[in-house]
Protein backbone atom coordinates (compact mmCIF):
# COMPACT_ATOMS: atom_id res chain seq x y z
CA UNK A 1 0.00 0.00 0.00
CA UNK A 2 2.88 2.34 0.84
CA UNK A 3 4.53 1.34 -2.44
CA UNK A 4 1.35 2.23 -4.37
CA UNK A 5 1.15 5.59 -2.60
CA UNK A 6 4.81 6.38 -3.34
CA UNK A 7 4.37 5.31 -6.94
CA UNK A 8 1.35 7.60 -7.34
CA UNK A 9 3.30 10.56 -5.91
CA UNK A 10 6.25 9.75 -8.17
CA UNK A 11 3.93 9.68 -11.21
CA UNK A 12 2.68 13.12 -10.19
CA UNK A 13 6.21 14.53 -10.43
CA UNK A 14 7.18 12.49 -13.48
CA UNK A 15 4.06 11.96 -15.59
CA UNK A 16 4.34 9.73 -18.64
CA UNK A 17 2.03 11.90 -20.80
CA UNK A 18 0.94 8.68 -22.45
CA UNK A 19 -2.85 8.65 -22.62
CA UNK A 20 -5.65 8.88 -25.17
CA UNK A 21 -3.72 6.47 -27.40
CA UNK A 22 -5.68 3.27 -27.47
CA UNK A 23 -9.44 3.09 -27.49
CA UNK A 24 -9.66 -0.43 -28.91
CA UNK A 25 -10.41 -1.99 -25.52
CA UNK A 26 -12.67 -0.36 -23.01
CA UNK A 27 -14.41 -1.65 -19.93
CA UNK A 28 -18.00 -1.51 -18.89
CA UNK A 29 -19.99 -2.14 -15.75
CA UNK A 30 -23.26 -3.99 -16.27
CA UNK A 31 -25.89 -4.49 -13.62
CA UNK A 32 -28.96 -6.63 -13.13
CA UNK A 33 -31.66 -6.73 -10.53
CA UNK A 34 -32.84 -9.87 -8.83
CA UNK A 35 -36.45 -9.62 -7.69
CA UNK A 36 -38.34 -12.53 -6.16
CA UNK A 37 -35.72 -14.91 -7.52
CA UNK A 38 -36.03 -13.59 -11.07
CA UNK A 39 -32.90 -12.14 -12.67
CA UNK A 40 -33.32 -9.24 -15.07
CA UNK A 41 -31.18 -8.97 -18.18
CA UNK A 42 -27.75 -7.43 -17.85
CA UNK A 43 -27.90 -3.69 -18.55
CA UNK A 44 -24.90 -1.39 -18.90
CA UNK A 45 -25.02 1.36 -16.28
CA UNK A 46 -25.66 4.69 -17.85
CA UNK A 47 -25.51 8.10 -16.35
CA UNK A 48 -28.48 10.09 -17.45
CA UNK A 49 -27.46 13.69 -17.11
CA UNK A 50 -27.88 16.87 -19.02
CA UNK A 51 -24.25 17.73 -19.55
CA UNK A 52 -23.88 15.86 -22.83
CA UNK A 53 -24.24 19.31 -24.32
CA UNK A 54 -21.95 22.12 -25.39
CA UNK A 55 -22.38 23.70 -21.93
CA UNK A 56 -19.90 21.23 -20.54
CA UNK A 57 -17.18 23.25 -22.25
CA UNK A 58 -17.57 25.54 -19.25
CA UNK A 59 -18.94 23.32 -16.48
CA UNK A 60 -18.99 19.54 -16.45
CA UNK A 61 -19.24 18.38 -12.85
CA UNK A 62 -21.28 15.23 -13.47
CA UNK A 63 -19.39 14.36 -16.64
CA UNK A 64 -16.05 14.59 -14.82
CA UNK A 65 -17.40 12.45 -11.98
CA UNK A 66 -18.46 9.86 -14.53
CA UNK A 67 -14.97 9.98 -16.07
CA UNK A 68 -13.48 9.35 -12.63
CA UNK A 69 -15.86 6.44 -12.04
CA UNK A 70 -14.81 5.02 -15.43
CA UNK A 71 -11.18 5.28 -14.27
CA UNK A 72 -12.07 3.13 -11.25
CA UNK A 73 -13.82 0.63 -13.53
CA UNK A 74 -10.71 0.45 -15.75
CA UNK A 75 -8.47 -0.06 -12.70
CA UNK A 76 -10.68 -2.88 -11.48
CA UNK A 77 -10.60 -4.54 -14.90
CA UNK A 78 -6.81 -4.26 -15.05
CA UNK A 79 -6.46 -5.70 -11.56
CA UNK A 80 -8.68 -8.66 -12.39
CA UNK A 81 -7.05 -9.27 -15.77
CA UNK A 82 -3.68 -9.95 -14.12
CA UNK A 83 -5.07 -11.79 -11.10
CA UNK A 84 -5.19 -15.45 -10.31
CA UNK A 85 -8.27 -16.98 -8.66
CA UNK A 86 -6.72 -16.00 -5.34
CA UNK A 87 -6.22 -12.48 -6.62
CA UNK A 88 -9.86 -12.20 -7.67
CA UNK A 89 -10.92 -13.21 -4.14
CA UNK A 90 -8.59 -10.54 -2.81
CA UNK A 91 -10.17 -8.04 -5.21
CA UNK A 92 -13.65 -8.87 -3.87
CA UNK A 93 -12.53 -7.89 -0.39
CA UNK A 94 -10.74 -4.72 -1.47
CA UNK A 95 -11.53 -1.03 -1.53
CA UNK A 96 -11.76 -0.94 -5.33
CA UNK A 97 -14.54 -3.55 -5.30
CA UNK A 98 -16.39 -1.57 -2.63
CA UNK A 99 -16.08 1.56 -4.79
CA UNK A 100 -17.75 -0.29 -7.69
CA UNK A 101 -20.60 -1.38 -5.41
CA UNK A 102 -21.09 2.25 -4.39
CA UNK A 103 -20.96 3.42 -8.02
CA UNK A 104 -23.75 0.94 -8.77
CA UNK A 105 -25.88 1.97 -5.82
CA UNK A 106 -25.49 5.62 -6.83
CA UNK A 107 -26.51 4.95 -10.41
CA UNK A 108 -29.18 2.29 -10.38
CA UNK A 109 -32.77 3.31 -9.98
CA UNK A 110 -35.14 2.98 -7.07
CA UNK A 111 -35.40 -0.52 -5.67
CA UNK A 112 -38.20 -2.42 -4.06
CA UNK A 113 -37.79 -4.00 -0.66
CA UNK A 114 -36.08 -7.34 -1.01
CA UNK A 115 -34.44 -6.54 -4.37
CA UNK A 116 -30.85 -7.56 -4.92
CA UNK A 117 -28.41 -6.45 -7.56
CA UNK A 118 -25.36 -7.90 -9.15
CA UNK A 119 -22.73 -6.32 -11.32
CA UNK A 120 -20.26 -7.62 -13.83
CA UNK A 121 -17.14 -6.18 -15.41
CA UNK A 122 -17.00 -6.53 -19.17
CA UNK A 123 -14.15 -5.88 -21.55
CA UNK A 124 -15.31 -4.57 -24.95
CA UNK A 125 -13.44 -4.47 -28.21
CA UNK A 126 -15.03 -3.55 -31.58
CA UNK A 127 -13.33 -6.44 -33.36
CA UNK A 128 -14.04 -9.07 -30.72
CA UNK A 129 -16.92 -10.33 -28.64
CA UNK A 130 -17.41 -8.77 -25.21
CA UNK A 131 -15.49 -10.65 -22.53
CA UNK A 132 -16.91 -11.08 -19.07
CA UNK A 133 -14.08 -10.46 -16.60
CA UNK A 134 -15.86 -10.68 -13.28
CA UNK A 135 -19.33 -11.26 -11.86
CA UNK A 136 -20.01 -10.03 -8.37
CA UNK A 137 -21.91 -11.57 -5.53
CA UNK A 138 -25.46 -10.37 -4.94
CA UNK A 139 -25.97 -7.28 -2.88
CA UNK A 140 -29.13 -5.84 -1.38
CA UNK A 141 -30.41 -2.98 -3.49
CA UNK A 142 -31.52 -0.21 -1.21
CA UNK A 143 -32.14 3.47 -1.31
CA UNK A 144 -29.14 4.18 0.88
CA UNK A 145 -25.94 3.90 -1.08
CA UNK A 146 -23.75 2.80 1.83
Amino acid at each position, binding site marked *: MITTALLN*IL*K*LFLPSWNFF*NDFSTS*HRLDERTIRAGHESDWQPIREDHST*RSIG*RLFFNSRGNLELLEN*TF*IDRAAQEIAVSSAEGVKHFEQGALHDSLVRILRRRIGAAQAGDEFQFRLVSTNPSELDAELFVSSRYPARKEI*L
Partner: protein
Amino acid sequence: MTLEPAIAIRAIQILLGAGILLQAIEVLATRSGHALLCMGNRPYSYTVQWLTAKMLVRLLLSIPLIGGLSQTLSVIEPVFYMALIISTGGLVLRFDGPLGGGSDSMMFQALVGLLIASFGVVNPILTRIGLGWIAAQSVLSYFLAGLAKLRNNNWLTGIALQTLLRSNGPYVLLAPARSLATSQALCVAASWGVILFEIGFPAVLLLPWDGKLAMLSAGMFFHIANAAILGLNRFMWAWAATYPAVLYFN
Protein backbone atom coordinates in the same frame (compact mmCIF):
# COMPACT_ATOMS: atom_id res chain seq x y z
CA MET B 1 8.71 40.40 -29.58
CA THR B 2 9.34 38.90 -26.14
CA LEU B 3 7.26 38.18 -23.09
CA GLU B 4 8.55 39.53 -19.80
CA PRO B 5 8.86 36.82 -17.13
CA ALA B 6 6.60 38.72 -14.74
CA ILE B 7 3.85 38.87 -17.37
CA ALA B 8 4.29 35.18 -18.24
CA ILE B 9 4.02 34.25 -14.56
CA ARG B 10 0.97 36.45 -14.08
CA ALA B 11 -0.77 34.87 -17.07
CA ILE B 12 0.05 31.36 -15.81
CA GLN B 13 -1.32 32.27 -12.37
CA ILE B 14 -4.63 33.46 -13.86
CA LEU B 15 -5.14 30.45 -16.14
CA LEU B 16 -4.02 27.93 -13.54
CA GLY B 17 -6.10 29.61 -10.87
CA ALA B 18 -9.15 29.40 -13.15
CA GLY B 19 -8.52 25.67 -13.67
CA ILE B 20 -8.17 25.02 -9.94
CA LEU B 21 -11.29 27.12 -9.20
CA LEU B 22 -13.29 25.20 -11.82
CA GLN B 23 -12.15 21.85 -10.41
CA ALA B 24 -13.04 22.89 -6.86
CA ILE B 25 -16.54 24.05 -7.85
CA GLU B 26 -17.19 20.95 -9.96
CA VAL B 27 -16.07 18.57 -7.20
CA LEU B 28 -18.08 20.48 -4.59
CA ALA B 29 -21.15 20.15 -6.84
CA THR B 30 -20.71 16.36 -6.92
CA ARG B 31 -18.97 15.81 -3.59
CA SER B 32 -21.24 12.96 -2.52
CA GLY B 33 -20.33 10.95 -5.63
CA HIS B 34 -16.64 11.73 -5.19
CA ALA B 35 -16.74 10.84 -1.50
CA LEU B 36 -18.16 7.41 -2.32
CA LEU B 37 -15.09 6.67 -4.43
CA CYS B 38 -12.48 7.68 -1.88
CA MET B 39 -14.03 6.82 1.47
CA GLY B 40 -12.42 3.39 1.82
CA ASN B 41 -13.17 2.28 5.39
CA ARG B 42 -13.79 5.82 6.63
CA PRO B 43 -17.29 7.03 7.46
CA TYR B 44 -19.12 8.60 4.52
CA SER B 45 -20.07 11.78 6.37
CA TYR B 46 -16.46 12.33 7.47
CA THR B 47 -15.26 11.85 3.88
CA VAL B 48 -17.77 14.37 2.55
CA GLN B 49 -16.63 16.88 5.15
CA TRP B 50 -12.99 16.20 4.35
CA LEU B 51 -13.56 16.64 0.62
CA THR B 52 -15.64 19.79 1.13
CA ALA B 53 -12.93 21.34 3.30
CA LYS B 54 -10.23 20.33 0.81
CA MET B 55 -12.08 21.90 -2.13
CA LEU B 56 -12.97 25.07 -0.21
CA VAL B 57 -9.30 25.56 0.65
CA ARG B 58 -8.32 25.07 -3.00
CA LEU B 59 -11.09 27.45 -4.06
CA LEU B 60 -9.86 30.09 -1.62
CA LEU B 61 -6.24 29.65 -2.75
CA SER B 62 -7.24 30.02 -6.40
CA ILE B 63 -8.80 33.46 -5.85
CA PRO B 64 -5.59 35.39 -5.11
CA LEU B 65 -3.91 33.48 -7.94
CA ILE B 66 -6.53 34.78 -10.37
CA GLY B 67 -6.91 38.23 -8.82
CA GLY B 68 -3.24 38.80 -8.23
CA LEU B 69 -1.23 38.55 -5.06
CA SER B 70 -1.03 41.82 -3.21
CA GLN B 71 2.31 43.24 -2.11
CA THR B 72 1.75 41.69 1.31
CA LEU B 73 0.79 38.24 0.06
CA SER B 74 3.56 38.13 -2.53
CA VAL B 75 6.02 37.66 0.32
CA ILE B 76 4.44 34.30 1.06
CA GLU B 77 3.88 33.40 -2.60
CA PRO B 78 5.80 30.08 -2.31
CA VAL B 79 3.48 29.10 0.52
CA PHE B 80 0.46 29.32 -1.83
CA TYR B 81 2.07 26.98 -4.29
CA MET B 82 3.28 24.57 -1.59
CA ALA B 83 -0.21 24.45 -0.11
CA LEU B 84 -1.73 23.59 -3.51
CA ILE B 85 1.01 21.07 -4.27
CA ILE B 86 0.51 19.30 -0.93
CA SER B 87 -3.25 19.47 -1.40
CA THR B 88 -2.95 17.83 -4.84
CA GLY B 89 -0.70 15.14 -3.36
CA GLY B 90 -3.32 14.46 -0.69
CA LEU B 91 -6.03 14.03 -3.31
CA VAL B 92 -3.83 11.67 -5.33
CA LEU B 93 -3.23 9.50 -2.26
CA ARG B 94 -6.91 9.41 -1.38
CA PHE B 95 -8.12 8.63 -4.90
CA ASP B 96 -5.16 6.39 -5.82
CA GLY B 97 -4.35 8.63 -8.74
CA PRO B 98 -4.97 12.14 -10.05
CA LEU B 99 -8.56 13.25 -9.44
CA GLY B 100 -8.87 14.78 -12.88
CA GLY B 101 -6.45 12.54 -14.75
CA GLY B 102 -4.01 14.30 -17.07
CA SER B 103 -5.37 17.77 -16.31
CA ASP B 104 -4.40 17.41 -12.66
CA SER B 105 -0.96 16.17 -13.69
CA MET B 106 -0.34 19.25 -15.83
CA MET B 107 -1.73 21.66 -13.23
CA PHE B 108 0.65 20.03 -10.74
CA GLN B 109 3.59 20.62 -13.09
CA ALA B 110 2.56 24.27 -13.48
CA LEU B 111 2.44 24.62 -9.68
CA VAL B 112 5.93 23.14 -9.36
CA GLY B 113 7.21 25.53 -12.00
CA LEU B 114 5.59 28.53 -10.32
CA LEU B 115 7.04 27.46 -6.96
CA ILE B 116 10.55 27.34 -8.43
CA ALA B 117 10.03 30.66 -10.21
CA SER B 118 8.79 32.30 -7.00
CA PHE B 119 12.33 32.01 -5.61
CA GLY B 120 13.54 34.21 -8.43
CA VAL B 121 13.91 37.05 -5.90
CA VAL B 122 16.76 35.03 -4.39
CA ASN B 123 18.33 34.16 -7.72
CA PRO B 124 16.83 35.33 -11.04
CA ILE B 125 17.93 32.10 -12.76
CA LEU B 126 15.25 30.30 -10.74
CA THR B 127 12.58 32.28 -12.57
CA ARG B 128 13.89 30.94 -15.88
CA ILE B 129 14.17 27.42 -14.48
CA GLY B 130 10.59 27.54 -13.20
CA LEU B 131 9.19 28.80 -16.50
CA GLY B 132 11.44 26.35 -18.31
CA TRP B 133 9.99 23.47 -16.27
CA ILE B 134 6.47 24.42 -17.29
CA ALA B 135 7.39 24.92 -20.96
CA ALA B 136 9.25 21.60 -21.02
CA GLN B 137 6.28 19.70 -19.58
CA SER B 138 3.97 21.32 -22.11
CA VAL B 139 6.21 20.40 -25.06
CA LEU B 140 6.88 16.90 -23.73
CA SER B 141 3.21 16.16 -23.18
CA TYR B 142 2.34 16.84 -26.80
CA PHE B 143 5.43 15.20 -28.28
CA LEU B 144 5.20 11.96 -26.27
CA ALA B 145 1.47 11.67 -26.97
CA GLY B 146 2.13 12.20 -30.69
CA LEU B 147 4.95 9.66 -30.68
CA ALA B 148 2.71 7.03 -29.08
CA LYS B 149 0.05 7.69 -31.74
CA LEU B 150 2.64 7.47 -34.54
CA ARG B 151 3.53 3.97 -33.33
CA ASN B 152 -0.10 2.91 -33.21
CA ASN B 153 -1.42 1.67 -36.56
CA ASN B 154 -4.99 2.30 -35.43
CA TRP B 155 -4.21 6.00 -35.22
CA LEU B 156 -2.44 6.07 -38.60
CA THR B 157 -5.46 4.53 -40.30
CA GLY B 158 -8.07 6.62 -38.46
CA ILE B 159 -9.53 3.54 -36.79
CA ALA B 160 -8.64 4.70 -33.26
CA LEU B 161 -10.60 7.92 -33.73
CA GLN B 162 -13.52 6.11 -35.35
CA THR B 163 -13.58 3.64 -32.45
CA LEU B 164 -13.54 6.49 -29.95
CA LEU B 165 -16.38 8.34 -31.68
CA ARG B 166 -18.50 5.19 -31.83
CA SER B 167 -17.77 4.05 -28.28
CA ASN B 168 -20.02 4.21 -25.27
CA GLY B 169 -17.16 4.61 -22.88
CA PRO B 170 -15.09 5.75 -21.16
CA TYR B 171 -15.67 9.25 -22.55
CA VAL B 172 -19.05 10.92 -22.46
CA LEU B 173 -19.31 11.93 -26.10
CA LEU B 174 -21.14 14.93 -27.46
CA ALA B 175 -23.95 13.34 -29.49
CA PRO B 176 -23.37 15.11 -32.85
CA ALA B 177 -19.69 14.11 -32.73
CA ARG B 178 -20.69 10.49 -33.30
CA SER B 179 -21.69 11.32 -36.87
CA LEU B 180 -18.03 12.07 -37.64
CA ALA B 181 -17.30 8.35 -37.22
CA THR B 182 -19.24 7.55 -40.40
CA SER B 183 -16.55 9.14 -42.56
CA GLN B 184 -13.31 7.15 -42.58
CA ALA B 185 -11.62 9.87 -44.65
CA LEU B 186 -12.51 12.51 -42.08
CA CYS B 187 -11.23 10.33 -39.26
CA VAL B 188 -7.96 9.70 -41.10
CA ALA B 189 -7.50 13.41 -41.79
CA ALA B 190 -8.32 14.38 -38.20
CA SER B 191 -6.01 11.67 -36.84
CA TRP B 192 -3.09 12.82 -38.95
CA GLY B 193 -3.84 16.41 -38.03
CA VAL B 194 -3.56 15.55 -34.34
CA ILE B 195 -0.43 13.43 -34.83
CA LEU B 196 1.40 16.08 -36.88
CA PHE B 197 0.42 18.83 -34.45
CA GLU B 198 1.61 16.85 -31.43
CA ILE B 199 4.84 15.58 -33.00
CA GLY B 200 5.60 19.03 -34.37
CA PHE B 201 4.83 20.93 -31.16
CA PRO B 202 8.48 21.12 -29.95
CA ALA B 203 9.13 23.37 -32.98
CA VAL B 204 7.13 26.06 -31.18
CA LEU B 205 10.25 26.84 -29.14
CA LEU B 206 12.14 27.74 -32.32
CA LEU B 207 9.43 29.62 -34.20
CA PRO B 208 9.24 33.40 -34.39
CA TRP B 209 6.59 35.17 -32.34
CA ASP B 210 3.82 34.94 -34.96
CA GLY B 211 4.56 31.26 -35.52
CA LYS B 212 4.37 30.61 -31.79
CA LEU B 213 1.00 32.33 -31.57
CA ALA B 214 -0.29 30.31 -34.52
CA MET B 215 0.87 27.02 -32.97
CA LEU B 216 -0.60 27.85 -29.58
CA SER B 217 -3.87 28.94 -31.19
CA ALA B 218 -4.02 25.54 -32.87
CA GLY B 219 -3.39 24.00 -29.46
CA MET B 220 -6.24 25.92 -27.89
CA PHE B 221 -8.55 24.87 -30.72
CA PHE B 222 -7.52 21.25 -30.09
CA HIS B 223 -8.30 21.49 -26.38
CA ILE B 224 -11.57 23.35 -26.92
CA ALA B 225 -12.62 20.60 -29.34
CA ASN B 226 -11.69 17.93 -26.76
CA ALA B 227 -13.63 19.81 -24.10
CA ALA B 228 -16.71 20.00 -26.30
CA ILE B 229 -16.60 16.49 -27.78
CA LEU B 230 -15.17 14.46 -24.88
CA GLY B 231 -16.10 16.65 -21.92
CA LEU B 232 -12.45 17.31 -21.00
CA ASN B 233 -13.00 20.92 -19.98
CA ARG B 234 -10.31 21.04 -17.28
CA PHE B 235 -7.64 19.99 -19.79
CA MET B 236 -8.30 23.23 -21.62
CA TRP B 237 -7.29 25.33 -18.58
CA ALA B 238 -4.42 23.08 -17.55
CA TRP B 239 -2.67 23.24 -20.92
CA ALA B 240 -3.55 26.91 -21.53
CA ALA B 241 -1.75 27.66 -18.25
CA THR B 242 1.48 26.34 -19.78
CA TYR B 243 1.32 28.47 -22.92
CA PRO B 244 2.70 31.71 -21.41
CA ALA B 245 5.80 29.74 -20.38
CA VAL B 246 6.17 28.48 -23.96
CA LEU B 247 5.78 32.06 -25.27
CA TYR B 248 8.40 33.32 -22.80
CA PHE B 249 11.11 31.17 -24.42
CA ASN B 250 11.37 33.21 -27.58
